């Protein structure tokens, strides 16, 4: 199965609906400081069910909603959709293509969808369980986090292995 595309709308600095299409091999993301590259990684994490705002550099989950700029008003919600080609049925659902959507409103209310059907966050966690997809510490390395692998104490390094084992 592979990652087909990521769509962001009102997520952090991506005020406008933005689609990132993924191909096989290596997709490089480049650009000046502060333009939104790491925010894309945060969007992937969030769409896979990340519940800790700190893992996405925020203090509260509401920090993830586009909060305006000099010319723009804040948006009322953040939405991210992640779409997979599931022709090998690695994801335990009966669809050749699987789209997971997550929304967060300013009220603090959240909505979750699998292929446009409303579901709970729990369903999203269970969808990805045992697939190797998810917020594995070893397959999503955030900016500046590579040093932690070695600088962490021997007891702390276990967390990398525990997700794999």
């Amino acid at each position, binding site marked *: 199965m592979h990652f087909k595309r990521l769509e962001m709308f009102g997520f952090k600095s991506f005020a406008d609906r933005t689609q990132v299409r993924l191909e096989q091999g290596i997709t490089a993301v480049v650009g000046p*400081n502060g333009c939104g590259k790491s925010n894309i990684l945060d969007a992937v994490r969030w769409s896979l069910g990340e519940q800790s705002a700190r893992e996405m550099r925020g203090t509260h989950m509401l920090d993830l909603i586009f909060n305006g*700029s000099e010319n723009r008003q804040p948006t009322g919600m953040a939405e991210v959709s992640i779409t997979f080609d599931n022709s090998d049925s690695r994801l335990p659902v009966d669809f050749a293509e699987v789209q997971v959507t997550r929304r967060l409103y300013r009220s603090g209310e959240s909505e979750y969808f699998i292929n446009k059907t409303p579901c709970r966050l729990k369903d999203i966690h269970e969808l990805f369980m045992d697939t190797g997809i998810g917020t594995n510490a070893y397959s999503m390395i955030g900016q500046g986090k590579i040093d932690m692998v070695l600088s962490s104490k021997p007891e702390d390094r276990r967390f990398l292995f525990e997700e794999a084992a």
Partner: protein
Amino acid sequence: TIEMFMETFQRVADNFRVFFRRLFNGGQARIYLLDESDPLESGIEVEARPPGKKPQGISLLSGGEQAMTATALLFSIFKAKPSPFCVLDEVDAALDDANIGRFLNLVQEFTDDSQFIIITHSKQTMARANVLYGVTMPERGVSQLVSVRFDEVPEAESAA
């Protein structure tokens, strides 16, 4: 379970010996359990010796050597339990050009089976990508994504 953990750990340990030598063009490294009698609670120790150098604590390794060693470990785990995709955010920041080349050679081993999304400022990494996206802010505070060709990288124009 203890067997599952030990089996995975052994595979990771074997991969690590191989990948370290590949990233460093020699030398040796290993990981081991501090307390073999208690695998599910034991801390995990890392030893690494770059080629031509004497063994020392990993804290004395240089910034780039530590990044390469950490990369060898991450890929060792990744090989034991592959994910369909992997996102790396500026893991090449501390690496010189020769090391970036060896890092990318190792990544290439995994690209048949996994997709890689690599955020980078390195021209070498950009050159090896299949697809290149540029993220810019033509309107301040609002991100915009564009497909770019290698020769039109918007690297240099930040507002800060």
